């Protein structure tokens, strides 16, 4: 296995108390595999990814438990410098907002070339040539002329391609893409997603795709992990989950996608609000919003029940959920 996250706990110390952002997350990604992590804002999906990358703000953040195994080494036990060498070379990250994630005062060529200067000890000139090569590879037109341009001079889609180029630069074995297309126009979204999937296939990389967009997931993901209140509530291969969700939350998410064949009907929305991480409800965190909640849900935290060989659901009533289509 390329990456294995085991029982990860992350909390944030705020003035108002301890916010439990991640509460025992387990997931794994193999080489060449795409894992989609799904969830609302505050579900802990980005925090988990930042913990994997080692770019969590600490403090206020703190990893209070668990293991992150990458190529059979526990990243949490590595020295800071060893950890740094892995970043960029062996795992890389693509952020949502490319405009703010790229340095406004450095040219894109400098920012791309920096990877080669720092990690490969290349000269500035060679690094520039590499930067042009990368820009060509992510299909930015006139790469040679534009290598000295600054991020604000590119369109949103082009900027995100530069982010992708930067992540791919040293051909890492794992890419984490945090909502890579959310900030883009719908027409551009597909192009960027296709590019990402294509490069992933070519380089046989593991990909963690963090998103709240179920439409994106269906096309590219191999398996899905759904997160709620810092826990994984369901994991499944991608097709099964669309056909038969085994958790009421997943079911709610799927029902809230607008569909053409439901024209004229009212759109479904999960009632209530995401939980306050300072005061996560006891028992199953989803129970205040769950249409199927029983007394047991208010007291007992559901374990990840085995639905079948490849599927898990953290719902006391996963069978009923599966049946009640």
């Amino acid at each position, binding site marked *: 296995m390329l990456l294995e996250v085991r029982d990860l706990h992350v909390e944030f110390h705020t003035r108002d108390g301890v916010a439990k952002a991640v509460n025992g997350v387990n997931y794994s990604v193999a080489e060449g595999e795409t894992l989609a992590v799904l969830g609302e804002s505050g579900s802990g999906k980005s925090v988990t990814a930042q913990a994997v*990358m080692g770019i969590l703000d600490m403090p206020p953040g703190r990893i209070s438990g668990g293991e992150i195994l990458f190529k059979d080494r526990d990243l949490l036990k590595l020295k800071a410098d060893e950890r740094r*060498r892995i*970043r960029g*070379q062996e795992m890389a990250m693509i952020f949502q907002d490319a405009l*703010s994630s790229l*340095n406004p005062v*450095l040219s894109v060529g400098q920012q791309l070339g920096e990877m080669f200067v720092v990690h490969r000890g290349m000269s500035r000139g060679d690094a520039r040539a590499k930067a042009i090569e990368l820009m060509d590879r992510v299909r930015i037109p006139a790469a040679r002329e534009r290598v000295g341009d600054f991020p*604000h001079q590119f369109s949103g889609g082009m900027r995100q391609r530069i982010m992708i180029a930067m992540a791919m630069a040293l051909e890492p074995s794992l890419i984490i893409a945090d909502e890579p297309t959310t900030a883009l126009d719908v027409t551009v979204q597909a192009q960027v997603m296709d590019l990402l999937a294509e490069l992933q296939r070519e380089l046989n990389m593991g990909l963690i795709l963090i998103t709240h967009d179920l439409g994106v997931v269906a096309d590219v993901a191999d398996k899905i992990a759904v997160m709620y209140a810092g826990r994984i509530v369901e994991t499944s291969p991608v097709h099964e989950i669309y056909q038969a969700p085994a958790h009421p939350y997943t079911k709610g998410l799927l029902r809230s996608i607008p569909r053409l064949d439901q024209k004229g009907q009212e759109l479904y929305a999960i009632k209530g609000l995401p939980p306050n991480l300072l005061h996560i409800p006891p028992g199953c965190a989803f129970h205040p919003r769950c249409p199927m909640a029983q007394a047991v849900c208010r007291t007992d935290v559901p374990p990840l029940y085995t639905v079948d060989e490849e599927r898990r659901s953290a719902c006391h009533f996963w069978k009923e959920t599966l049946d009640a289509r």
Partner: protein
Amino acid sequence: MGRYVIRRLLQMIPVFFGTTLLIFLMVNVMGDPIAGLCGDRQCDPATAAQLRTEFGLDKPVWQQYLTYMGNIFTGDFGTAFNGQKVTELMATAFPITIRLTIVAIVFEIVIGISLGVVTGLRRGRPVDTVVLILTLVVIAVPTFVTGLLLQLLLGVEWGIIKPSVSSEAPVDELIVPGLVLASVSLAYVTRLTRTSIAENARADYVRTAVAKGLPRRRVVVRHLLRNSLIPVVTFIGTDVGALMGGAIVTERIFNIHGVGYQLYQGILRQNSQTVVGFVTVLVLVFLAANLIVDLLYAVLDPRIRYA
């Protein structure tokens, strides 16, 4: 870029004339420009009237102003109270004040930015708290008090420096006065750098730099510092003019015969030509500093350069 410079230059023209007119009015309308011309005595009415005609003071104020400005642009700044040409006074005074200002700016850059970076990266730690309190104290104690205290301690009690600077004002004698002159600005530079560093440290592009696996030093220097120093450079640049104008207090304490000293003499002796002349040059320096800051800003921030 070219259009940007031209626009800034055009904007400066009304500011130049507005500022000089304001000073001109203060001196010539509020005060009595000929009061100082008859020595310590009051002028007798006949002489006064004659002097007024001679200096064109019987004409409307706007005409006086235009005449004065016209003279200035031909290099004629008039005559000081002691019969010297004002331009001669400037030739001896400005180099001294410029040296003093340079010493002050060096202090601002070296100490102010270093402290700002250190505290900005260690927000909430003891070193941050101590430096923050120190900057507040420095801001709160007026410059003339800081100056008098340092002069008392270093000059009089411990004899480390000469309490008053000799008339040539070599750089080594200007170190303590330069520190006094810089003190308040230095505290502002520290706080501004700290705030800017702390704000930018949370920026997305810094997170990207960390995610790229860059060494911490490179993240801080190349990514964080480069962005954070933009407002600091702006502040220091505009401060040049303020320092030269504010040197008056420091120069008085340490008896430095620079611009502030000459201006002070000019004001005491009510010599309007000295005062308006020096202030006009100071305003020009201030505007030039502002222009340079704007250009520097464009160099440092490509978003402005290509706007």
